[in-house]
């Protein structure tokens, strides 16, 4: 799936709302948009598997960052993309068009029509700053 900078910034705006660090935001964005496997830790997290998440967590992950990410997942993530291992693997296998439709439905990205109009209007957009 190809998204414009407008949609990308819209998605990353949601991360700034929850102060999600960039190390966490990038794999989540790639998982949602492109359906990339998010790795052991994030897969376990998305599948609600606490034990596996802790076992595969990197030592530099902080509880504070984890709280922010969990807040973001609860608030912004489409239910189709998390809650158990089945849903996570299904999300990665979804065709681009389906993934795009779900992300548009939850207003995480703009529709293709909106993207075209934004690009033609040359609307200014600022890349959100994540830490």
């Amino acid at each position, binding site marked *: 799936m190809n998204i414009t900078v407008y949609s990308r910034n819209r998605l990353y705006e949601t991360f700034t709302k929850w102060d999600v660090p960039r190390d966490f935001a990038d794999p989540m964005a790639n998982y949602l948009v492109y359906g990339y496997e998010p790795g052991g830790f994030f897969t376990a997290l998305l599948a609600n598997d606490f034990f596996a998440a802790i076992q595969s967590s990197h030592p530099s992950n902080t509880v504070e960052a984890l709280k922010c990410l969990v807040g973001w997942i609860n608030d912004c993530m489409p239910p189709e993309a998390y809650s158990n291992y089945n849903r996570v693997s299904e999300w990665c296998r979804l065709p681009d068009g389906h993934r795009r439709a779900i992300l548009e439905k939850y207003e995480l990205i703009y529709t293709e029509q909106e993207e075209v109009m934004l*690009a*033609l209007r040359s609307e200014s957009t600022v890349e959100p700053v994540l830490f």
Partner: protein
Amino acid sequence: MMSEHQRLMALLKGPDWYAHESGKDLLAVLNQGKRKRYKSMNSTADKHILTIMHLFDNEQSVRILKTWLSTYKLPLDPYRLKTFDQFHEQFGKFITNNTATIESY
């Protein structure tokens, strides 16, 4: 539908001329102060979009629409334009893949 003479004129004068002429035309429709002027602006825009798609190539068509939106600030709504789906189908990929280039038009 354009006459052959009008078509030839538009081709000779080029996309920039057409962009400004049609932009002014749409602005005039919008500023006429009548009720339903947005509706008539959208239907006029539909006619112009069909002409653009018929006469000009991808880049020129996109440049014309960009002139309407950025120079004349026309409040075009993609969901109210009947031809927008056709326009999107033809140029959508080109626009979304070249946002940086389009900004420089």
